[in-house]
């Protein structure tokens, strides 16, 4: 039981560490990062958002909205979650993706909790916040797909985004339950078989906001390393949408290695209110169902 809680905390905190670490180098290229930082491996803030060290971006902030809503509603409630996103948007967050902003405008104007399917919704804005769903649906696995896709559709409605939200949720659940690594890997291989856009082996070096690239960058770093720190350093140093690739790598690797596997030097830097709330929410999410 305490191992499960440790992994759930690892998942949420790991994602936040990926966000904070990657934000410094978001939108930089691999060679630009090399020229400026050599290897970027410290939580120092900065980046295009002028972040304070240890602070997170929309990736973690939206995940917090998802998690709070799941705990409050004892499961997935689209209206409650959409309201939470709108309330967050109105605080003037440090960043908000264009597809997310558009989806929230639709909800404000029309009250519809689901976007219409769109070829332009293949971005990673729904994937980046799916980790709490994986934890919440542990005791009601039949709800996993409905919740993972339901939360995504508030802003993103695209078959690849839907598919990877489900697949990564399953990977996280496999890790949380302490299943063998091969089971987690098989979920990834199955994803690639059906949708080659997610090919992570060989990794083609593309680390942009398209879900195919985001997943490939995150998962290839998990696949090619054997500890949390190396996984995230490998991931964010690819640059591109580094805070989000870092978030996705962090949610998978964090669930796998557990909170005990997260570097203390990074955890000490993480903004303390965010850290404390994620720590608590892990427990609340496990109690659902």
């Amino acid at each position, binding site marked *: 039981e305490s191992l499960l809680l440790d992994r759930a905390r690892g998942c949420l905190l790991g994602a936040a560490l990926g966000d904070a670490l990657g934000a410094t180098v978001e939108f930089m290229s691999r060679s630009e990062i090399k020229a400026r930082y050599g290897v970027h491996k410290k939580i120092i803030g900065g980046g295009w958002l002028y972040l304070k060290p240890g602070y997170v971006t929309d990736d973690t902030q939206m995940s917090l909205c998802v998690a709070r809503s799941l705990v409050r509603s004892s499961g997935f409630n689209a209206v409650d979650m959409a309201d939470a996103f*709108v309330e967050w*948007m*109105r605080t*003037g967050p440090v960043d*908000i993706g*264009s*597809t997310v*902003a*558009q989806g*929230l*405008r*639709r909800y*404000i*104007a*029309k009250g519809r909790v689901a976007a219409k399917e*769109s070829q*332009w919704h293949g971005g990673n804005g729904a994937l980046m916040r799916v980790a709490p769903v994986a934890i919440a649906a542990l005791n009601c696995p039949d709800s996993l797909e409905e919740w993972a896709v339901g939360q995504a559709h508030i802003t993103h409605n695209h078959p690849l985004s839907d598919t990877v939200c489900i697949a990564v949720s399953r990977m996280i659940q496999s890790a949380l339950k302490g299943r063998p690594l091969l089971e987690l890997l098989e979920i990834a291989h199955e994803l690639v078989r059906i949708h080659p856009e997610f090919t992570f082996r060989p990794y083609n070096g593309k680390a942009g906001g398209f879900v195919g690239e985001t997943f490939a960058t995150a998962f290839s770093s998990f696949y090619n390393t054997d500890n949390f720190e190396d996984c995230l350093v490998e991931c964010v140093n690819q640059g591109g949408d580094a805070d989000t690739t870092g978030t996705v790598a962090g949610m998978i690797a964090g669930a796998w290695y557990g909170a005990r596997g997260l570097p203390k030097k990074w955890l000490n830097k993480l903004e303390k209110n965010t850290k404390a709330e994620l720590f608590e929410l892990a427990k609340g999410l496990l109690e659902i169902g």
Partner: protein
Amino acid sequence: MKKIEAIIKPFKLDDVKDALHEVGVQGITVLEVKGFGRQKGHTEVYRGAEYTVDFQPKVKIEAAVEDGMVEKVISAIENAANTGKIGDGKIFVLPLEEAVRIRTGERGDEAL
């Protein structure tokens, strides 16, 4: 899609921007302009002589929005920019046939 243009008093810019944020409109383009209307310009003294500057500095806000957002955006601007005094300004709505996000090539509502 529609293109909304609002002419407002300059000191109202921040209030209008905040009101637009509340309804989810993040992207706008702002221009400094001169307004001529019922509101009288102010008098200035230049080399001892008084003369009337007959225009009013105004700010013009341009925002491309989805059809479903137009009324929300009009209300947001109206409420934020209104003082009840002459010269508060205007809101205009024009049809927008296409929009493109230069960074990604996205078109239509996705470009906004």
